[in-house]
């Protein structure tokens, strides 16, 4: 195995889990693997594909992530890789479909798989492995955001005898059951990584008002060292906090889905190049960002689920050095979290009106969900489904509140939510030890105002000469 690893991908050793996953796939088994992002998830299908010498299909829900993975692979020297997604123009798509058999690795979105010509073309290929990336989306988002991920199950059923690899970084037991069910995985090999990372420490702080949180963030960032990410649910707030930090000369930038693509790329690149110390972001930030030395993640408000929270907090300390994830809480957070979690669900009235064919105003997501329900289920089934969904979401919300209000140990709650037990004892969380906050390094120098230091000729020369 090691010989193949070196030969095909140039690595000298496996990271935990990789070898087990590849071996199971080569034996033709379905695999559900929980591996943290940035810890070599993609190696699992890369090596398997190379060793099988057959085409690997990778289904990924997020277009930007897909693009990023294709670029990463090209960087590694794997050139026969393509992303088949809605970014392509009609012409590009036709061209890609015609030449599809030339590629070893084909990335595509669940939406594309619903298109007749794509489906047909794929059946003509010699596919050896189907990978479902970010498989938790099937459950975490699937029901409400991505109907096409659900339809995926139907298509997979028709692909007999091709092993399936479902990958995720964070999934609870319920989510894992969902994944298995939706993807029709029969007695899969399951690999769980240990989520209890000793280098990641948790801290929690309570405030009387939201304004106090923002004031604390400003003071804290002035006194301590990044690089870090501050997560906040609202776009407006990312701008507001970033501006506050810039006013005291901290190199910070706001990041949200409202920015144009080029600006988002620039911010990521600046963060990786250490030109930006802090990113103030909505949940849009993080997928596909590989920065090992993130020292702090601050949640201005708890994420709408612990799966989201762990994924975001887990972006810190990828280099194995200590980092602290700080969760800020204030009265009223419960409502914000509830609003965020339930925001995109249709209401019961909407379901009724939609089934009765009445005109109504819906968000894009609500329209997508209702259209899907309408095509698959009766009215009663849809109402039943909505109830189940609300119950599920409420359970997820309660789990986040447990972490908000616990008097005992944050880590115990977080780990048990993912069906794991806590092993790390030392500096585990701020509730168990006051010393956690001391792990954050004190700022050594005060930043100076940023300015364009070069004139235009100088900068051009620096770029090209």
């Amino acid at each position, binding site marked *: 195995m090691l010989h193949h690893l070196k030969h095909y991908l140039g690595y000298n050793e496996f990271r935990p889990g990789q070898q087990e996953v590849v071996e199971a796939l080569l034996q033709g088994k379905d695999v559900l693997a929980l591996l943290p992002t940035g810890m070599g998830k993609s190696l699992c299908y890369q090596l398997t594909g190379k060793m099988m010498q057959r085409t690997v299909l990778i289904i990924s829900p997020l277009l930007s992530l897909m693009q990023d993975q294709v670029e990463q692979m090209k960087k590694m020297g794997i050139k026969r890789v393509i992303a088949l997604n809605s970014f392509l123009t009609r012409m*590009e798509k036709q061209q890609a479909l015609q030449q599809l058999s030339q590629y070893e690795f084909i990335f595509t979105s669940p939406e594309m798989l619903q298109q007749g010509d794509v489906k047909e073309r794929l059946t003509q290929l010699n596919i050896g492995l189907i990978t479902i990336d970010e498989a938790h989306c099937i459950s975490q988002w699937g029901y409400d955001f991505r109907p096409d991920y659900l339809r995926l199950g139907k298509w997979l059923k028709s692909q007999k005898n091709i092993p399936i690899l479902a990958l995720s970084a964070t999934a609870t037991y319920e989510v894992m059951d969902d994944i298995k069910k939706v993807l029709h995985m029969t007695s899969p090999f399951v690999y769980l990584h240990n989520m209890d990372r000793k280098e990641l420490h948790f801290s929690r702080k309570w405030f009387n008002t939201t304004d106090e949180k923002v004031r604390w963030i400003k003071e804290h960032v002035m006194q301590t060292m990044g690089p870090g990410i501050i997560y906040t649910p609202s776009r407006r707030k990312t701008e507001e906090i970033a501006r506050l930090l810039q006013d005291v000369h901290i190199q910070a930038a706001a990041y949200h889905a409202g920015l144009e693509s080029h600006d988002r790329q620039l911010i990521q690149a600046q963060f990786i190049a250490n030109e930006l110390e802090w990113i103030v972001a909505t949940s849009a930030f993080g997928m596909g960002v590989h920065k090992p030395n993130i020292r702090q993640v601050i949640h201005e408000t708890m994420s709408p689920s612990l799966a989201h929270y762990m994924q975001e907090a887990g972006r810190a300390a990828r280099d194995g050095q200590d980092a602290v994830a700080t969760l800020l809480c204030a009265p009223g957070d419960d409502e914000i979290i509830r609003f965020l979690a339930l925001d995109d669900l249709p209401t019961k009235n909407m379901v009724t009106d939609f089934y009765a064919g009445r005109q109504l105003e819906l968000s894009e997501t609500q329209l997508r969900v209702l259209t899907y329900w309408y095509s698959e289920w009766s009215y009663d089934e849809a109402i039943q489904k909505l109830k189940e969904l609300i119950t599920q979401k409420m359970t997820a919300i309660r789990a986040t509140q447990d972490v908000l209000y616990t008097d005992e140990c944050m880590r115990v709650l977080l780990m048990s939510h993912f069906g794991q037990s806590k092993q790390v004892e030392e500096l585990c969380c701020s509730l168990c030890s006051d010393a956690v906050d001391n792990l954050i390094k004190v700022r050594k120098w005060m930043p100076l105002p940023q300015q*364009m230091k070069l004139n235009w000729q100088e900068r*051009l020369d620096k770029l090209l000469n």
Partner: protein
Amino acid sequence: MSMFKQLVHHILTKLQQERTVSSVYHLLKGKKSGQTLEDVGMYQLHAFYHLLPKLKRSVYDEVIVALEQEHKIQRTEQGYILHEPYEGHYHFNGWIYRGKEHLFFERCVLVTQTLSHVKAQDMHFTPMVKSITTQQFVKQFLQAEHYHDNQLTTRWLTELKQALQHADLTEMMRVSFVYRLSGHALPGYTWQQLADAQKMSVLDMQIIFIESLHIMMQAKTPLLLALQKDCITSNFLTVSSRQTYEMLQLGYTLEQISQQRSLKINTIQDHIVEIARNVPGFSLQPYVQADTVRQVWEAVNAYQTFKLKTLQEILQLPYFELKLALTRKGE
């Protein structure tokens, strides 16, 4: 005073109180309606067409309100009254580029990023531009130009420096252009960062940036020209009118064109009316005298009509001259 507000004020001045304030919005958005296209020709507003296709109505309305509060204009039921004219000095060329200047710039970004990485001997990088079409275009361009030898980098640098010397560019435009580019371990600035550095709004920065691109795209050196492929709109004439236009530029007379192309004189005259509407700065002089144009517009105002038949009865002018005169105000 913000750039954007000045720009709107300038266009409102050009419109001579004869349109509604919304027509400026449609013009900047690049609306393809007959009315907007007619405005472009009549008030010679080619420069500003399609400058800001993503402009939000709310942002535009804010500026109108501000102009009212400053007593520069006043909205009325039919249109607006201009209390204070403003004429700026601009180098836009929206009619020709129609938003494609951004495509040109994205190509410049990718070329610079790639060559910068070639120089650093590190070809592992994440392209700043995500569009597959642009990536492929630049890839083909770079391969055709043999990007692995250093000559291309030198040529690119020379062409950029030369284009940036253009006298119409300000120092601020040059520095902003260059800071928006990315290279090896040297990411560019976001709109917000550029705007902050110049202490202006993001929208103003974007407007100034568009103007700089329009100026730089006048550069016709080989590499910059190659990157302008498909960024220039030239099909605003029908095929037949285009042929007539080309022959006019070669010095043929109306009659000669008619004979050579075996088309009726009337047809060629219709072409010329179309050309007068669509080609910025096309001179009416050879076909209709300035005095006549003035007369036609006096009649339009006196009788409150654009009907050709009525105007013909009043003025006793050939239809061709009437139609031509109506394409243009104030010439």
